[in-house]
């Protein structure tokens, strides 16, 4: 199983990269838990999660080759 992860804005700052691959994660909730363990600063961040470009609202199953993107809000103008 191979999942593509994309991070934007401050999320990429926290994770230190904007694109990487991970394996073995069954759904978005367990992905977030895994990421928060690795990057504790993520806990207080607010961001949207998209699975294959679609913004999700609740826990979503992740399949092989899916792309998960983490998009935080910006306010700059």
């Amino acid at each position: 199983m191979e999942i593509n992860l994309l991070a934007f804005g401050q999320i990429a700052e926290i994770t230190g990269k904007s694109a990487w691959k991970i394996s073995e994660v069954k759904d978005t909730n367990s992905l977030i838990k895994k990421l928060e363990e690795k990057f504790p600063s993520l806990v207080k961040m607010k961001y949207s999660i998209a699975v294959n470009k679609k913004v999700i609202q609740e826990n979503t199953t992740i399949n092989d080759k899916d792309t998960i993107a983490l998009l935080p809000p910006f306010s700059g103008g």
Partner: protein
Amino acid sequence: MNLDNNRYQRQIQLKEIGQLGQDKIAQAKLLVIGAGGLGCPALQYLAAAGVGTIGVVDFDVVELSNLQRQILYNLDDIGKPKATTAAGKIKALNPDIKIETYNFQITNKNALEILENYDVIIDGSDNFATRYLINDACIILNRPLIYGAVLRFEGQIGVFNYRDFETNIKTNYRDLFPKPPNLDSAISCNDVGVLGVIPGIIGTMQATEALKIITGIGKSLANKILSYNALENTFYDFEIAANENTNSDFPKNKTEFLTFNYEWFCNANFDVETISIEEFDTVRKQETITIIDVREKGELPFVDEFPFIHIPLSELEKTLSTITAKNKIVVYCKSGQRSAKAVQLLKEKLSNCQVFSLKGGIEAWKNIN
């Protein structure tokens, strides 16, 4: 040769626009909120394209640090109000269009009566409270909202509250970000910077979306957020779906909108002690306190009315250990957002001090003093 037609010849030549499209552009009424990094290029292109009525909202004045990205302004404009200055520049570019200026901050008290005069709204604001406020006002008034936001080398653009004819759905900012970020994780360009061309690109894309909506051509970014990363040279789009979970706590009609506290909504999870202007003036005259200005270098207005230490927020964390303070500290910035963050940093380090953030910032103080 007809001089009027010649001005717009290159876009009338486009078969998708033509004279009919140009007439629609001339009849359009468009509001740009924020004449900053996003607003400047958007205003320039929309005035150049011949948008018949353009409204400009901004309460700020031009500062030297704006010139790196707010391309309507030059050195002579420093200290002048942005809305009227921007209006003057685009009037010179195209005297045939009508321009309305609003030299004050948009609030829930004035937003509806301003926005209802316009067909399309462009959000070029720079803080979450205003962004949620504009979003909600556009829903109540049923106006399409063209959103743009920038940070560092990245930008986001999207079209809200505009029906996508293929899917027949309409989404908004709250469907994407139901809750504003906590203040301590919400950073702005004032704190971390932005490459000047980024708002140039995103503001120009906002103007493009506005012209597409006005003329009814192409596919709009309705129900989508397009994210641009200049360092990676990537665009990535997100499809937004209506979010039923978020429809509970936002104002749904004019009455609720008028009483909704947007500042509180955006700061709700952030608990720092503030000091009012009056209390601050009393305390600093009666007691020996430490006053810290956390604005970046060169920000206006100048302060010479009282002694203070200047430590920009961007440098505060690394200088924390060197700060020796009296037992009472008042921190200020321009509007009170960055000082709130600074208070949190200071409190962690100087646990025996009372630390306050000046409510409304130095701008509010200058208004009274």
